[in-house]
C-alpha cells in the first residue's frame, strides 16, 4: 500500500477540473461568448458533480462508512472539503459573471435587465407576454396540513412563497419556473440591432406572483433550486426487462434525497430555514449565489446571440487524405489496411458514409455496432435502420444507462427494433462503453471483415466537439477479436482468448498492470522506460501504485489527464502530469509503452478508473499502422509542450500553468494545423515532429 500522500481525493480532483474550466472563463484572451460558454459548462458540470459524486459520498456517510479513501479522508471529511472548495468556486464564478462577463456583454451583445428597471412600454410588453405565454402553464402548489409537502423536481428553478389569507397568516406555496418556457425573454422595446435586451423568466414570474394567488397577501417570495441524488441504481439481478426498469427508475428519480440547495443571497432567513427543514436537507448544503440561478441556461442565450466577433472562429473538420469520393470506404480500407480519423480535427462523416454504403451494399451480410450516446436525429441510427430494412443482419448493442441520456436512448432503440434490427439492451451489471463497429461483407465468395473502433461515441454532434481517435481496419486478428467481443456482448458466447485486444471487465486491468510492470522491468539507467498515457481521469488505486513503482524503477511517465487525477506526483519523481482544457473537450484515451525500443501504442474507450476497469465493457486495441502512430506521436508531443492550455499537476496537488516559452504551442491549434497541412500538401507527415522516443526534458 502506497502512502496516502501519493493520492488526491477523487471528488476534490473533479472539483479541480472544474476549477480549470472556470479558468478558461476567466482568461481574457478567450473571446467573450466562449467565456460565457465556459461559465455554463462549469455550472452543468457542477450540477452533475452534486447529483452523482457528492450524492455518492453522502450515501456513504449515511450508511455509516468511516473508512478513509486512498488519500486518507473519511466521507465526512470529504463532504466538508467539497463544501469548502465548491463554495469558493461558485463564488469565483458569480463574481466573474457579475463583474466582468455580463458588464462586457452589455457593451457588445446583450444585457439582462432587472424587471424593476423596465420602462413602462417594456413593462406593458412583458405583461402581455406573461398573460399569453407564461401564466397558462404555471401551477402553484399549496403546502398545508391537507396537502402533503410536494415533490420538488431536481434542478428546476422554484419559487417559495409565504402568504396570508384572512386570519391565516402562515401559508406556504411553491411555483415551479417551467422548463418548457424560454429562460431569457427578449424585450423588443428595449433591444437595438446591436444590443439585445432580455429579462429572466423567474424575475417576470416573481413580478406577477400576486396574480397567482387570488384573495391572498404575499408576504415573501424567493427563488431556489434543489439538486437531488440522481445516481441511478438499478437492481439488475432481478431485472426481467431492463427497458421497463429504466423507465421506472426515471420516474423514481424525482423522489431522490436532496443534496444541494441554491438560493440567491439575501433570501429571507425564516423562509429559508423552513424550506431546509421541510426538505430534510443536510447541514452545509446551502449555496448562496449572487446572480441568476443555473447559469448553464446561458447555452440557450448563446445559441440565440451568435456574434462571430465574440466567438472563436470555427475550425474546419478536414477530410482524411486516405479517403476519396471516387471509391467506397471499403475500397479505401482495403487499399490502406488501417485508416485513422482524429476527431474533431478530421471529420466524422466517413463513419456515417461507411454505414450508409454498408446499408445499401448487396454484398454486406451483417453489421454489428455498440451505441452508447448518440445524437437525437442520428444519421448513424438512420443508416442502421436502412440496413435492417434491406435485410442485413443488424445487431445493435445499446447501452440504455448512459448517464442522463436514458430517455433519449429508449426512443431510438425502439425505432431500430421496429425496422427489424436485433437490439440488445446491455448486459446485466455491466455498462457497455466500448465503441465498436463490425461489418461482414462477401467479396468474391469469401468473407471480408471491416471494423471501426474508437475512443469516442458514435455521435456525429459530439464528434465536432470532443477529441477522439477512430480507426478503420481490416486486420484479421483485430476483426476476429471484435467479432468475439460482439459474440460475448450478444450473449452468444463466453470469453475465450483474445488475439490482440484486451477488454474490461475480463483482462483489461491486468493488461494495464502487466504493461506498466514490463516497462519497469525493462527500464535501465542507460535506457529508461517510457510511458505516455492520455485519458480523461486517473483514479484506480492499483494502477496508480504501479505507476509510482515504475517511476521508482526509472520509468519516465507522462500523463495527460483532462479531468480527475488522483495521483499526486511525488516530488522529484519521473511522473509528469498535464491537464489540457481548451475549446475542444479532450476525450481520446491513448496508451503508449516504449517496451525497450519496440514501442506499443494502444487506443481505448477506458480511463484508468474503477468503473472502466471493473464495471463496464471496455476495449483496448493496438495501433500498428505507422501513419497513425506518427500522428499520435505528434499530437502527444503538442500536448506535452502545451504551456498555454496545459496545466501541470505538481507535488502539492495544485495545478499550475508553466511559464510560456518562445516555442510554446496551443496543442489543439497545432493539431488543427497539422491536419490542415496533411490535406494541403498531401505529403507524409514530417518525421521531424516525431520526438516521442528520446524524451525531451521539460524546462
Amino acid at each position, binding site marked *: 500500500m502506497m502512502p496516502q500522500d501519493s493520492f488526491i481525493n477523487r471528488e476534490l480532483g473533479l472539483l479541480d477540473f472544474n476549477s480549470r474550466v472556470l479558468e478558461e472563463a476567466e482568461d481574457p484572451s478567450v473571446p467573450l461568448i466562449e467565456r460565457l460558454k465556459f461559465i455554463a459548462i462549469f455550472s452543468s458540470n457542477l450540477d452533475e458533480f452534486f447529483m452523482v459524486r457528492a450524492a455518492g459520498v453522502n450515501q456513504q456517510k449515511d450508511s455509516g462508512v468511516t473508512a478513509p479513501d486512498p488519500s486518507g479522508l473519511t466521507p465526512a471529511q470529504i463532504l466538508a472539503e467539497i463544501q469548502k472548495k465548491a463554495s469558493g468556486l461558485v463564488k469565483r464564478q458569480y463574481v466573474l459573471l457579475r463583474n466582468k462577463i455580463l458588464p462586457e456583454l452589455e457593451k457588445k451583445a446583450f444585457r439582462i435587465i432587472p424587471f424593476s428597471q423596465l420602462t413602462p412600454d417594456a413593462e406593458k410588453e412583458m405583461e402581455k407576454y406573461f398573460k399569453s405565454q407564461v401564466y397558462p402553464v404555471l401551477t402553484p402548489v399549496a403546502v398545508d396540513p391537507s396537502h402533503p409537502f410536494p415533490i420538488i423536481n431536481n434542478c428546476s428553478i422554484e419559487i417559495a412563497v409565504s402568504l396570508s389569507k384572512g386570519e391565516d397568516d402562515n401559508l406556504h406555496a411553491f411555483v415551479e419556473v417551467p422548463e418548457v418556457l424560454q429562460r431569457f425573454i427578449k424585450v423588443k422595446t428595449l433591444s437595438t440591432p446591436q444590443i439585445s435586451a432580455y429579462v429572466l423568466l423567474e424575475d417576470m414570474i416573481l413580478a406577477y406572483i400576486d396574480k397567482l394567488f387570488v384573495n391572498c397577501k404575499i408576504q415573501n417570495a424567493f427563488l431556489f433550486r434543489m439538486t437531488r441524488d440522481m445516481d441511478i441504481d438499478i437492481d439488475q439481478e432481478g431485472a426481467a426487462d431492463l427497458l421497463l426498469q429504466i423507465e421506472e427508475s426515471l420516474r423514481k428519480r424525482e423522489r431522490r434525497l436532496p443534496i444541494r440547495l441554491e438560493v440567491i443571497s439575501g433570501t429571507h432567513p425564516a423562509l429559508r430555514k423552513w424550506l431546509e427543514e421541510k426538505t430534510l436537507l443536510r447541514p452545509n448544503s446551502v449555496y448562496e449565489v449572487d446572480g441568476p440561478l443555473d447559469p448553464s441556461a446561458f447555452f440557450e442565450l448563446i445559441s440565440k446571440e451568435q456574434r462571430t466577433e465574440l466567438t472563436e472562429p470555427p475550425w474546419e473538420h478536414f477530410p482524411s487524405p486516405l479517403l476519396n469520393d471516387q471509391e467506397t470506404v471499403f475500397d479505401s480500407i482495403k487499399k490502406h489496411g488501417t485508416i485513422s480519423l482524429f476527431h474533431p480535427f478530421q471529420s466524422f462523416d466517413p463513419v456515417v458514409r461507411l454505414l450508409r454504403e454498408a446499408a445499401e451494399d448487396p454484398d454486406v*451480410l451483417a453489421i454489428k455496432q455498440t451505441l452508447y450516446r448518440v445524437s437525437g436525429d442520428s444519421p448513424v441510427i438512420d443508416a442502421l435502420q436502412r440496413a435492417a430494412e434491406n435485410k442485413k443482419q443488424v445487431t445493435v448493442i445499446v447501452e440504455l444507462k448512459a448517464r442522463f441520456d436514458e430517455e433519449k436512448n429508449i426512443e431510438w432503440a425502439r425505432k431500430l427494433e421496429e425496422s427489424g434490427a436485433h437490439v440488445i439492451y446491455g448486459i446485466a451489471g455491466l455498462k457497455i462503453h466500448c465503441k465498436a463497429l463490425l461489418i*461482414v461483407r462477401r467479396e468474391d465468395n469469401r468473407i471480408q471483415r471491416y471494423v471501426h473502433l474508437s475512443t469516442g461515441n458514435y455521435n456525429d454532434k459530439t464528434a465536432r466537439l470532443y477529441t477522439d481517435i477512430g480507426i478503420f481496419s481490416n486486420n484479421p486478428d483485430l476483426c476476429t477479436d471484435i467479432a468475439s467481443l460482439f459474440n460475448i456482448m*450478444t450473449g452468444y458466447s463466453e470469453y475465450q482468448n483474445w488475439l490482440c485486444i484486451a477488454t474490461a471487465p475480463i483482462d483489461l486491468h491486468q493488461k494495464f498492470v502487466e504493461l506498466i510492470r514490463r516497462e519497469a522491468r525493462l527500464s535501465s539507467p542507460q535506457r529508461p522506460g517510457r510511458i505516455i498515457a492520455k485519458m480523461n481521469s486517473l483514479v484506480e488505486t492499483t494502477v496508480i501504485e504501479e505507476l509510482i513503482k515504475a517511476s521508482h524503477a526509472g520509468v519516465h511517465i507522462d500523463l495527460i489527464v483532462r479531468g480527475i487525477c488522483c495521483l499526486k506526483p511525488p516530488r522529484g519523481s519521473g511522473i509528469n502530469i498535464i491537464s489540457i482544457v481548451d475549446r475542444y473537450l479532450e476525450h481520446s484515451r491513448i496508451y503508449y509503452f516504449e517496451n525497450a525500443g519496440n514501442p506499443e501504442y494502444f487506443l481505448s474507450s477506458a480511463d484508468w478508473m474503477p468503473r472502466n476497469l471493473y464495471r463496464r465493457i471496455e476495449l483496448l486495441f493496438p495501433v500498428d499502422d505507422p501513419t497513425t502512430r506518427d500522428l499520435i506521436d505528434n499530437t502527444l508531443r503538442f500536448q506535452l509542450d502545451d504551456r498555454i492550455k496545459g496545466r501541470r499537476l505538481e507535488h502539492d496537488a495544485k495545478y499550475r500553468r508553466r511559464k510560456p516559452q518562445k516555442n510554446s504551442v496551443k496543442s489543439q491549434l497545432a493539431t488543427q494545423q497539422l491536419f490542415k497541412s496533411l490535406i494541403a500538401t498531401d505529403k507524409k507527415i514530417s518525421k521531424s515532429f516525431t520526438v516521442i522516443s528520446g524524451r525531451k526534458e521539460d524546462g
Partner: protein
Amino acid sequence: MKNILLEPIAVIDVGSHSIKMEIAQFDAKGSKEVLTRLEHSIFLGSDVFTKGKITSKSMRHACKIISDCAALMKEYGVSRYKAVATSAVREALNQDIFINRVKVTSDIDVKILEPTEEMKLIFLAVKDAIEKRFGLQKHNAVICNIGTGSTQIAFIEKGVFRNIQTLKFGTLRLIEEIFTGISSRRLKDSIAPFIENIVESAFNSASENMTDMLIVVGATARALVSIQRDKPPKHIATMSRKDFERIFSKVTEMTPAQLVERFHLSDSIAIGLEPCCHLIEQIFKITSAKSIVIPIINTRDVLLRDIVLEASGEPDRFDEAMISSAEFIAEKYNYDKEHSTAVSEYATTLFDMLKDIHNLDQKSRLLLQLAAILHDTGQFISQAQHHKHSYYIVINSFIPGLSQTEQKILALLCRYHRKSPPKTSHPEYTGLSTADRVRVCKIASILRIADALDRTHQSRLKIVKAETDSTTLNIHVVTDSDDITIETWGIKTKSDMFSDTFGLDVKLIGDLEI
C-alpha cells in the same frame, strides 16, 4: 480434379460440457482464417452421465445456443457446415429427440460423431506433422484423446492403426458421475486407483506391444502446455516426463480458482486438470514413453479440415489405417490371410469393373474390402454358422473411421457372405434405412461372387474382364490350369443373391494364362 473450397464454412461441436462453433475460410494455399468463434458452457454431460438422458432444461439451453450459431452462420453467409455431437449426446437415451429438436429450432443437422470417426480425423490431422518430427513408423504409439465426457485411446503400431478403445472417463465426467457428493479429500485418494484400473484394462485388451510414444490431444492437455510455457508452440508441443511431473504437482497444489487466475484458463479446464494429469500419469506408468507429444489442435480444426477435404473430392488416405485395423482384428481370430487377400482382390476388381451397374460410392468399396478381410473371422468360434459368428465379432470390434451405421453394415456384410440372404425377419437388417439395405444387398452379392472365386482358397484366378448384356454378367478369368470347375460350381451356388439384386445371371468364362 481438386476443388478448392474458398467460401466460409462452419463447424459446431456439441460436447459434454460446452458447445463450440468456429466459422473460418481457407485460401487457395490452404491457410485458414478464423472469422469468428463461439463457446458456451452447457450441462449435457452431467445430465447424461447421471440420469442417462438430456433434461428438457439442458435441451432448451442447447437449442438456444445452436440457434445462435445458426444466426452467426447467416451473418457470415455460411451454407456448408458440420455439426457434430460427442460423448454426452452419443450416450444419451433421447439423442434422437435432441437432434430433432435442434433441427426444428435452428435447421441445423447435428450428427453423432463416433469415437472411431473422431479418432480418425485426429489421426489424419496430426499424422504428417508427427511423422516428420518423431518418425511414427519407428514407434508403437498411443493417441489419447482426453475429453470432458469420454476418452479414446488409439494404438498405432509402426505408423499403422491397430485398435481403439473408448474409456468412460472424462475430465469432468469423473467428478460428476463417480464422485459426486464425496469430500475432496476422499476424491483425491480415490481418483488414482480408479484411473489405474481403467487404463490397465484398456491397454491389456488392446495391445501386446510395449508403447513407447504417447500423443495426447484435447483442451485440457493443451492447457498443460500453457502452464508449461508462456508462449506455446504453434503446432506440436512436447513435454518430458519430468516436466509433466512438475506441472502435475503444481496443479495439485493450486485450487482451480488459482489456476484460472494464474494461467488464464477457463473454469471447466481448471477443474479437469487434475483428473487429466492422473490419467496421463497412469499411461506413463504402463508405457515406456519418455515424453508426451501434444499436438496443438482441436476438434474444430479437425472438422474444418475434413469439410475442405470432402469438398476437394480427394480420398482421405485413411483407408489404409482402417484396413490395417481390420487385419489386426482378423489376425486375433486366426484368419486365413491368403484367402482374405484373394477375396479382397477379386471383390474390389469386380466392384471397379461393375461401377455402371451398382452405382456405389468409394466408402462402399472400402466396406467391401473390410468385409473381405473379416468375413471368415467367425470360424474362430465354429465352422458351423460362422457367418453369424463373424457378425458378432465385427459388431463388437472397433475400427477407426467407421460410423455406427457403417459398422452395422460391415457386420451384416460378413453375415450375408453365405447362406441366407437378408430377410425381413432379420432385425439387424430391417433396422437399417432403405438405402443402406440396398447397399448391403449389392455389396454382399459382390462379396459372395468374390468368395466363390477363391473357393479353393488357393487364389489361383485372375479376373481379366467383366461384361454384361441384358441378362448375364460374364466374368472372364485366367488361371494356370484350365480347370475352373470348382469355381464355376461355387458361382452357381453363390450367385443367387447377385441375380436377385441386379437381375443378372452370372457366368464364369475361363481362359488359359498365356
